[in-house]
């Protein structure tokens, strides 16, 4: 790693100040950022740890929504969201492995927007709202393609508000080496309709599969998806799977998520 200064502010205000300096970067759980820095692919002058800010942690119910602090770890979400939003908790419990889950955070994952990460599927599939120190951003506006988000310089995710669906589930097909999603489907049924978000598959990152949503909104069962398929064009092709395979998996995983949620 390149040398850097490390600061660990206790308040959001101090973090914002620290991140206002040139070359400053936020550090949350570090499960992706630190391995990247070991490869010297990142060279922040200052790393600002967000894990000391208690305001950024925790899972709380607000009416029909679950609000989760950005620095809440995957393990905490898996445990503390299980009662209110079991589909989300189950997704969090499938990220990485136990040691990764005890450090990795919701905010860190969303801000990175790895096209194979699990959380973006839940955030987009829940129609969640990303709350930052500056504003609120809808999930649809937040994710802007592989590793790209609407976040601006110095903007910190503080929490994410997840509307709680009537039922939901996540089905993940592992990329076998990294244990990220080769393709994952998050399905959530709300009073206003069904959301289907696919991660891991597309070159544009997480996306909503609108055809499937329309079909499932009328009939929430795996059979409703018969005859539907995601086009292979624009899907990721790599040594773990062709675009055709990923497109196929999107259908299979969506069916499985629907079956699991039913």
């Amino acid at each position, binding site marked *: 790693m*390149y040398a850097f200064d490390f600061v660990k502010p206790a308040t959001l205000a101090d973090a914002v100040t620290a991140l206002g300096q040139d070359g400053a970067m936020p550090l949350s759980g570090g499960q992706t950022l630190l391995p990247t820095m*070991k490869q*010297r692919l990142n060279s922040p002058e200052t790393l600002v740890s967000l894990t000391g800010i208690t305001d950024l942690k925790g899972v709380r119910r607000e009416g029909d929504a679950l609000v989760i602090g950005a620095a809440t770890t995957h393990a905490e979400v898996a445990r503390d969201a299980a009662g209110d939003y079991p589909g989300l908790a189950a997704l969090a419990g499938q990220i990485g492995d136990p040691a990764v889950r005890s450090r990795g955070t919701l905010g860190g994952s969303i801000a990175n927007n790895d096209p194979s990460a699990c959380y973006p599927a839940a955030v987009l599939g829940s129609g969640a709202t990303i709350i930052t120190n500056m504003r609120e951003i809808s999930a649809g506006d937040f994710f802007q393609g592989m590793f790209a988000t609407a976040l601006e310089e110095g903007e910190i995710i503080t929490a994410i508000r997840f509307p709680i669906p009537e039922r939901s589930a996540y089905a993940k097909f592992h990329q076998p*080496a990294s244990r990220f999603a080769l393709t994952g489907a998050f399905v959530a049924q709300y009073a206003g309709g069904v959301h289907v978000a696919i991660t891991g598959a597309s070159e544009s990152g997480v996306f909503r599969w609108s055809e499937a949503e329309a079909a499932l909104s009328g009939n929430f069962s795996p059979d409703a998806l018969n005859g539907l398929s995601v086009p292979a064009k624009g899907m990721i092709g790599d*040594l773990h799977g*062709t675009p*055709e*395979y990923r497109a*196929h998996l999107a259908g299979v995983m969506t069916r499985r998520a629907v079956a699991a949620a039913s």
Partner: protein
Amino acid sequence: MPKDGIGASTKRREDIRFLTGNGRYTDDINLRGQAYVHFLRSEVAHGRIRSIDTSAASAMPGVIRIFTAEDFGHAGGLPCGWLVTDRFGEPMQEPKHPILAEGKVRHVGDPICGIVAETLEQARDAAEAIELDIEELPAVVDMRKALEDNSVKVHDDLTSNLCYDWGFVEENKEAVNAAFAEAAHVVSVELTNNRLCANPMEARVAIGDYDPWNEQHTLYTTSQNPHVIRLLMGAFVLSLPEHKLRIVAPDVGGGFGSKIYHYAEEAFCTHVAKVLRQPVKWTSTRSEAFISDAHARDHVSKVELALDKDHNFLAIRSTTLANMGAYLSTFAPSVPTWLHGTLMAGPYKTPLVYVNVKAVFTNTVAVDAYRGAGRPEATFQLERIIDKAARELGVDGVELRRKNFIKPEQFPYQTPVAVEYDSGNFHATMDKMLELSNYANLDKRVEESRKKGKLRGFGISQYIEACGIAPSHLVGQLGARAGLYETATVRVNATGSISVLTGCHSHGQGHETSFPQIVADMIGIDASQIDIVHGDTATTPMGMGTYGSRSMAVGGSALVKATNKIIDKAKKIAAHLLEASEADIELKDGKFSVAGTDKSVDWAGVTLAAYVPHNYPLESLEPGLEETAFYDPNNFTFPSGCYGCEIEVDPDTGKVEIMAFTAADDFGVVINPMIVEGQVHGGLAQGIGQALTENCVYDENGQLLTGSFMDYTMPRADDLPVFKVDHSCFTPCTHNPLGAKGCGEAGAIGAPPAVVNAVIDALHRAGHTHVQHINMPVTPARVWAAMNSK
């Protein structure tokens, strides 16, 4: 027999330090005043070095010195330990393998500069400041393209990228062709044996140290064979005499072959410690290991089987391209030849075999032996082609194999590929596997799987391998530039405890526990009285190390030999003490007695007399009790066995799940069954890993796409089943004193075809009969693509 003798599942004594974090691995060693080494490695697969400017980098904070190839002008290249002679009687092409790149870089990861600094990060910072001007050249990665006339040459001074064109048995070639021409049935399959990375969990480390007052070099290194490193590096690379060069391989975190070889980093650290008068330490990262450790396998083969009308095997013809990578690693040329061609008869009575292997240079990391080495490639071809033959002929694969097995009464059996099998019982291991796997009820399980939407299949693999390497005179004839004996010194101390010094090296095999079991058994004392010393050339006799499943068969035999010398001498001492004839002395349970009397002296009484020779036959016997033996085997050993793999395919995703895996092995006599079972489990996991998940993939420019555990799929706990293993059907090795054959590589040799055969079986049972073969690794994507390829 003492409770910890031969055949006892004694707990491993080494576990205590490992379980409490007190192992001492090379990276745990830090020498006073040590500097750190970082290698600037090539980022391109092929290029000409125009210039290297280290001036700015050398001035960076903490930088002690930056070394380039010019600093190693006096040194030889890294030697290759095996000369293969081609089918025209000519020696293989053998390019120089410099310590640091000279003129050209030939693979991603080829070391160009070694930066020595006070801290590792300072060395890495300086590496980025080196101004390197490399003219990138087209890279050649594909072996077929490398052999085309107009191909780019990896080595400008060679005539082509062909290392050798080997034929075996060349004299049989025409007879084999004739057998094919007349055969009632001919079956063929083209397949690849995927390129692997051994990936022991401990990456390589080297620490060089130099004592100027005694002109003594010490290298601490993660090696399976410290004496081999001393010989190769001392004699061929740095011109250092053995008595001034000490190699220490302390606790080593797995090897699987990848830590046999003499690597550039070892020679670098040894030499630079002297130049700088300062210890220097290099620790590989995992990412660096992927581009600097020797890779493995990487064969592309076509195998054909000729059968008569009654389905007797008539002949095998096999043609292979074997990737050597950019340079010849220590044992690389022997793997696709003598470790592969000699096993192409397998456990079958096929009378005619012809194997052709073209070894090819490419712009990739060097390829060398890895658990099994050549034998997995042979077994994979045989067991896949037999599986395919059974399907094409519409006969049962079990019966087709049984019909062609060498029968138990036919041993010793001379194969048409030079080796003579001393013992085996293939029918017995097959019957045992079928029984343990409940093969008889397979159809019922297939039906149950079908009801839940899964495709179940069963794959069989019957293997035989050659290990316990090796008779030195024989391997010498075959091109080995080393002997392959093993040594043991049994040093009995005055009060009766024993230190065994061995040339073998334990890096997971449990020698510290199993070797004392032999001595305890032979003398009749408690195993706790015996310790093993290994891994340090300063304290152990020159032995060839641990690989090729040789430690027990060869090193254990040396230990038996040395212990017998001890017992012989101890009996003489006992005879003197008991005033009896030596011929009347019996040793039982650690006590020497005179036959037919109640006169006796215990072990410690004899050992004390040896070192305090007050009452001792000094006129005819030297005092002391220490013996060394060198054991050079008469033959290879031939473990064999039958594996059954039962899988389910998820037809929606193509994912293969292993439902059960059964192994019935014949390892001859087993010293510690618990350790042997563990060795089988580990070998099976690596074999299943090769079959289902592991793959080193280069793109056409020679960039490694699987350069970390993010893309190279190591088998995890939830990828593997409970294993059912058995070693009860044993036929002792007839030519070594233990009757032991070796067990370390069996799983990695036998498992891959069992897995692939199971997948093909599942697909065929489900009607996907168009799928004739799927190349390893049989990933979900490949299975799905094969199923949908109609």
